[in-house]
């Protein structure tokens, strides 16, 4: 892999409640290289969005980072002061959220919002910033940017708004972009446009992207590598082609089989019995053990650590050399 931009090691996020801390993210580790798109996928409650929020330092009380470290280009950012973190956010880490309307201020022209971001994080003059904003809007595919720059967010369609948000995220040339369900609120035809745009821009700018989504189809098309999360832990992480075509972790296997596809007609979808456990009741040992078709005694007592299998890392006792020998 090329230069590592983001490195997350044993990240643990806990939410303090009256009944004691709840662990939403439990020792999650991954790296994202320059120009690489890491897909983070999981069902609701898997902790994928919390992971993204932790990286950009937006975990609100009662939540807190309870352990591990986050490094951006080798430099720790999880213990920065709020003021120092504010300077990292926007400048070095850009953000794209699901709903573009909530990321844009409805009372300001979109151009002013981009200019504000540019002026905060760079030392461009007002005039240069406006020229740069027009360039950015053109780059994300907004027609007639010199005219649209003076429009208000409500004058843009959903897809165009999400393009503006991408322009905003890219404005200060960040090293990393956190995209949390960037296409979920969009129609499929527009979704395809946004994915293509995001992919092209990251390649051109060499930006690392953490793409958080529940949609495996989006991951398949956009991501280079994918991390499958379950109950706050990474079940499997590896190159996208191998995780989708040949998943190892029983949860990943079940998940891929459960997704109906256009390319083949399945008479029955494979289904995983039960549902994701609540944070208050995460099972002992492997969090997936009550739903796992291949569970054995060790899974109920000992939490599996990620072990290399082919090109992936899989947190499952099945792949432990000791078990395979037995």
């Amino acid at each position, binding site marked *: 892999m090329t230069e590592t931009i983001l490195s997350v090691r044993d990240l643990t996020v806990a939410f303090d409640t009256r009944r004691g801390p709840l662990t939403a993210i439990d020792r999650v580790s991954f790296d994202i290289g320059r120009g690489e798109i890491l897909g983070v996928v999981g*069902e*609701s409650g898997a902790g994928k969005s919390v992971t993204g929020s932790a990286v950009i330092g937006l975990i609100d009380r009662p939540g807190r980072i309870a352990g591990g470290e986050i490094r951006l280009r080798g430099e720790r950012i999880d213990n920065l002061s709020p003021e120092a973190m504010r300077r990292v956010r926007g400048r070095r880490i850009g953000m794209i959220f699901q709903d573009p309307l909530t990321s844009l201020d409805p009372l300001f022209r979109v151009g002013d919002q981009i200019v504000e971001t540019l002026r905060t994080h760079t030392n461009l003059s007002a005039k240069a910033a406006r020229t740069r904003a027009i360039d950015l809007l053109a780059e994300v595919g907004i027609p007639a940017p010199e005219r649209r720059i003076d429009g208000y967010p409500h004058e843009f*369609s*959903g*897809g*165009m708004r999400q393009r503006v948000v991408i322009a905003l995220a890219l404005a200060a040339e960040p090293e990393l972009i956190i995209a949390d369900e960037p296409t979920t609120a969009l*129609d*499929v*035809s*527009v*979704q*395809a*446009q946004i*994915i*293509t745009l995001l*992919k092209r821009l990251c390649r051109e700018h060499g930006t690392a992207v953490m793409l958080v989504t*529940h*949609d*495996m*189809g*989006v991951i*398949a*098309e*956009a991501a*280079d590598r994918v991390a499958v999360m379950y109950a706050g832990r990474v079940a499997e992480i590896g190159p*996208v*082609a191998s995780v*989708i*075509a040949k998943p190892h972790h029983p949860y990943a296997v*079940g*998940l*891929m*089989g*459960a*997704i*109906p*596809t*256009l*390319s*083949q*007609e*399945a008479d*029955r*979808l*494979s*289904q*995983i*019995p039960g*549902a*994701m456990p609540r944070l208050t009741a995460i099972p002992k040992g492997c969090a997936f053990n009550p739903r796992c078709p291949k569970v054995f005694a060790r899974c109920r007592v000992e939490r599996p650590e990620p072990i290399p299998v082919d090109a992936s890392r899989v947190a499952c006792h099945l792949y432990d050399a000791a078990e395979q020998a037995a």
Partner: protein
Amino acid sequence: MSAYVEVTDLRRRFDVSKPWLNRVIEREPRKFLTAVDRVGFAIEKGETFAIVGESGSGKSTVARMVVGLLPPSAGEVTITGVSMTDPRQAAARRRLRSRIQMIFQDPYASMNPRWRVGKIIAEPIRAFDLIQGEGAIRARVSELLGLVGLHADDAKKYPHEFSGGQRQRVAIARALASQAEFLVGDEPTSALDVSVQAQILNLMRDLQDQLGLTYLFISHNLAVVRHMATRVGVMYLGRLVEVAAARDLFATPRHPYTRMLLDAVPDLAHVGRARVPVSGEIPNPIDPPSGCTFHPRCPLANDRCRAEVPALLDGVACHAVQEGRA
């Protein structure tokens, strides 16, 4: 012998005018939004007819008119030969009512949170006075819970004690309680996680085989439609643009919009696919394009497409296809 459900020339207009005083002062005429325009299809007994389309295509409006939740502006829906609108057939319609049920997208919003699940499921039984005696009703509720894969003891619980997927099972049990034979599902699995979605889709297919149900299935998810449907209708801006057997539609889509849609869907089979995304977005339905509403985005559009609305002939509403240009 006519089909089980017949929909002919169905239209629905919504009045989206400003208030009277504003119209007078600003000298604006009344404005109408044609949500559904001349839609016609038939559903045979025991089959699954699916309607796919992006947001604003009018698919939910069609579903609501078919079950009688919304009166059509013009056109007619007949189910087993009984008109859903003709006042002279009110008595026959009342007898039919219990056999038609709807399953909504959000299982959280479609249940009274203060009622126990047993009472929720028993409501249609009581409303239609189908079974007499509390003991017999309780026995029927237990039977229904078993049918959808829940436990008879679950009748004592409240909706909040269930997960999303289990709640959707309760909604299906309630729909079946009145001995329904025709179920209309409006995005029944869109709010669910994929592994849970697979459980519900499998359940719906099993129940169809067991009870001979007929489904009208509304979804924006083409992969889910492919998995469920016998025949598919594709809607765009209130009009049905293509109707075909599911197998044919996915193997050889004919309408340019269907082709575009199929090509736009991110799918597991497309790992790392690079593609040319379709341009444009869905136009504003208040002011739709002239002629074929798809013409501004269509690669095959010519002058005739801009002027003349294509009729649905032989399952496809497209001048280019009918003229053999496609």
